[in-house]
C-alpha cells in the first residue's frame, strides 16, 4: 500500500477504535448512572421499584423536621404544595438545610412509601433553588 494511504488508514482506524470505546462507555455509564427526578406528586402517581435509585425534591415543610436524640437520624417532610413525602436520612445534613428550604435528596423509596435518602443536597446560596425544585414548585403553585 502507498505509505500515505497506509497512514490515513491508521488514523481512521484509531479514531474509530477510540470512538467505539468511548461510545460503549458512554452508553454503559449512562444506562447505569442516570437518576430520574421525581416530585412528591409524581411519586403518588407512579409506582417506583424499591430497587431504583432516584432523586426527589421539594420544599421542607414547616415543623416537620424531627431529629432523634443522640443519633444521626433525621426525618422530615418535603412538599410540592400538593403532595407530601416523608424522608429519613442518617448522617450530617448540609448547612443550608432548614425549614422551607428547597432540597434535593438521592436515595430509594421503601415499601411503606418512605424515602430513604443517602444524600441530601441544599444548595449553597440561600436565595438559590435547584432548578428541578423551582420548576416543581412553580408548576404546582
Amino acid at each position, binding site marked *: 500500500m502507498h505509505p500515505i494511504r497506509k497512514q490515513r488508514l491508521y488514523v481512521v482506524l484509531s479514531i474509530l477504535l477510540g470512538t467505539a470505546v468511548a461510545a460503549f462507555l458512554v452508553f454503559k455509564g449512562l444506562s447505569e448512572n442516570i437518576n430520574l427526578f421525581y416530585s412528591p406528586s409524581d411519586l403518588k402517581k407512579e409506582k417506583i421499584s424499591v430497587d431504583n435509585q432516584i432523586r426527589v425534591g421539594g420544599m421542607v415543610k414547616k415543623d416537620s423536621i424531627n431529629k432523634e436524640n*443522640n443519633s444521626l437520624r433525621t426525618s422530615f417532610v418535603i412538599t410540592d404544595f400538593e403532595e407530601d413525602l416523608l424522608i429519613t436520612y442518617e448522617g450530617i445534613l448540609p448547612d443550608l438545610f432548614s425549614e422551607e428550604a428547597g432540597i434535593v435528596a438521592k436515595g430509594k423509596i421503601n415499601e411503606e412509601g418512605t424515602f430513604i435518602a443517602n444524600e441530601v443536597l441544599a444548595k449553597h446560596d440561600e436565595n438559590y433553588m435547584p432548578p428541578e425544585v423551582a420548576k416543581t414548585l412553580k408548576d404546582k403553585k
Partner: protein
Amino acid sequence: MIVEIGHIFLIGALVVSFIAGFSPLLRFLTKDNFYYMVIGPMNNLVCLFIFLSLISLIYSFLVDDFSVAYIANNSNTLLPTYYKFAATWGAHEGSLLLWIFCLCLWSTTYFFINRQKDEEFVALTLSVLNQIIFAFIAFTIFTSNPFERILPVVPIEGADLNPLLQDFAFTIHPPLLYLGYSGLAVPFALSLSALISKKIDSVWAREARPWSLLSSGFLTLGIALGSWWAYYELGWGGWWFWDPVENAAFVPWLISVAMFHSLIVTEKRGIYKNWSILLSILAFAASILGTFLVRSGILTSVHVFALDPERGVFILAIFSYFILGSLIFYSFLNNKLPGRSTYNLTSKEFGFLLNNILLVILALSIMFGTLFPLIYEALNDGDQISVGAPYYEILILPFALALSILQGVGLYLSWSSTKQFNFLNRVAIESFSIFVILSLLVFFIFGTLSWGTFLAIAMFSWIFSGNLVDAVYQSTQLQELKSILIKRFGMISAHLGTAFLILGVGIVTTFSLERDVVLQKGESYKLGSTHFIFKEIQEAKRLNYSFQSADIEIREEGLIDQISPEKRNYLSSNQVMTEAAIKPTLLQDYYVTLGEQVGDGTWTFKLQIKPFIRWIWFGAILIALGTFVSSYRYVKRL
C-alpha cells in the same frame, strides 16, 4: 461619581473595542493599511479603560457604596477589607468584568511581544481579540451591568458576600481560571488570522504554542485551587464532584492539552495543520461554553449564581457568531493545506495522534454527560435526570490508562519511524522495580492493597521511569544528564505531575475512611488506627460571625494533636456554615466536620482520613510549572 466614571470607561471600552475589532473592514473602503498602525494603541486603550473600570468597581466595594445594586447584593460593612476587595468578583456581574480584564491582559501582552512582527498578521489577530472583547463587554453592559444603581432608595446595609466565598483560595481561584479560559482566545485568534493571511506554517505553530501552554497552565492552577477550596470549605472532604461547572473547566483543559501537543507536530513536521486549527476553535468553543454553563443557570450546580434566560440567549449568540463564523471561515479558507511527511505506527507523530484522539474523545464524552440532562429533558417531555459521578469514573479510567501508557513511551519514539524498538524492555525493568518498591511501601503503610491502587502505582511507575530514565540512558556524563534534564524540564515536570496526581487519586479513592458519628463530651471514636476524642465545645464571636467550636484530639502512633472544627453563624446573612478542621501530614489528612447538637453535651461529627490527597494538588502544581517553563522558553525564542 466614581461609579459613573467606571461605567463610562466600560462604555468607552465598548466603543473602542468595536472600532478596533472591525477596523480590518476599513481596508475595503480606504484601500490602504492605515489600521495596522492604530489597532495596537486602540487595543491598549481598551485594556486601560477596562482596568480603570475594574478599579472603580473595586473602589466602590471598598467604600461600601450600596447604591450600586451589585455591591448591595454582595458586600456588607462588616466584611473584612480584603474580602470587600475580592467580593468584586464574588458574583456574576463583577466576575464578567474580571473575565474581560483577563482577556485584555492577554491581548495587550500579545501586542507587546509581537509589535515588531508581521504587521498584517498581528493586526488581524488583535482585531479578532477585540471582537471577542467587544462581545463580552456588550454582554456585560446589556445583561449584567455591575454599575447599575438602586435609586432612589439606597439600602443602608449590604446583603453580604456568600460566607463560602469568604476565603483566601476563593479570592484567587476566579482570576486564575479566567486567565485560563480567556487565554484560549489567543490561539483561536492566531488561527483565524493565519487562515486569512494563508500563513499556516511552522512559524504560526511556534507562535500559537506558548499561548495554549499558558492557558493550560492557568486552567490547571484554577481547577486545582477550586478543588482544594471545595475540599476544605464545603466540609464534605470531597475534592472533585463531577459538577457541571467543574466539567466546564475540565473540558477546555483537556482540549488545550491536546492542542499544545498537536502544535508540536505542526511546528516540527509541518503536519496536523488542519487539526491544530480545529483544536484551537474547539478549545475556544469549550471556553465560551464553560462560561455559558456557569452563567446561564440551566444546569444544577453548586456554582450557579442566577437564573436568567436572556443572558443564556446572549451568550448563545456570541457562541454562534465566533464558533460557526470561524468554522465557515475555516471551510472556505483552508483550501488543502500543503505539507505531508510520512510516518509509521512506531513514530512520534502517531504517538501524538493517539494522544490527541484520546484527549478529544474524552473531552467530548465528558461534555456529552454534562449536557445529557438537557438533551434528555428536551426529548422526554420535561422529565428531569442527573448523571451520577460513576458515569465519569467509568469513562475516565480507560482513557487515563491509555494516556499514561503513551506518556511513558512517548520519549522513546523518534519522528517518522523508531528504528530501535527496544524501549519496552528498557522502561519495563525500571518501571517494574519502582512498581514493586512502591507497592510494598503502600502495603506497609495501609496494610492492604486493591486493584485500583495497583493500577495507580503501575501508571505512576510507568510515567516516572518513562520520563526520567530515558534521559539517564541518553547521557554518558553527569553534565550531559543535567543539560538534558534542564532542556526537557517543562515536559518532565508536567508528566511527573500527572503521575503524582494519578497516584494521589488512586490512593485517596481506595483508602479514604469516613464516618458520621455521635459523640458525647469526653467520648472517643476509633477510625482506622486513629482515635478522635471530643474534648470540649465553646462559643465565641469574631468580626462578622459568631461560632461554636469543638476541640477534637487526634491520637495515633507518633501523633497527638488537637484540631477545632467550627460551626459559624454569619451575622448579616444569618447563614450557617461549617468550617472543617484539617490536620495535614505528608501521608494523610485528618478531617473533622462539626455537625449539630443532638443532646446534652452530645454532638454529631463527620470524621475522615484522606491519605495522599495533597499529592493530587502537588501533581497539579507540577503540571502548571511545566507549562509555564515551556511557554517561557518559547516566548524567549520568538
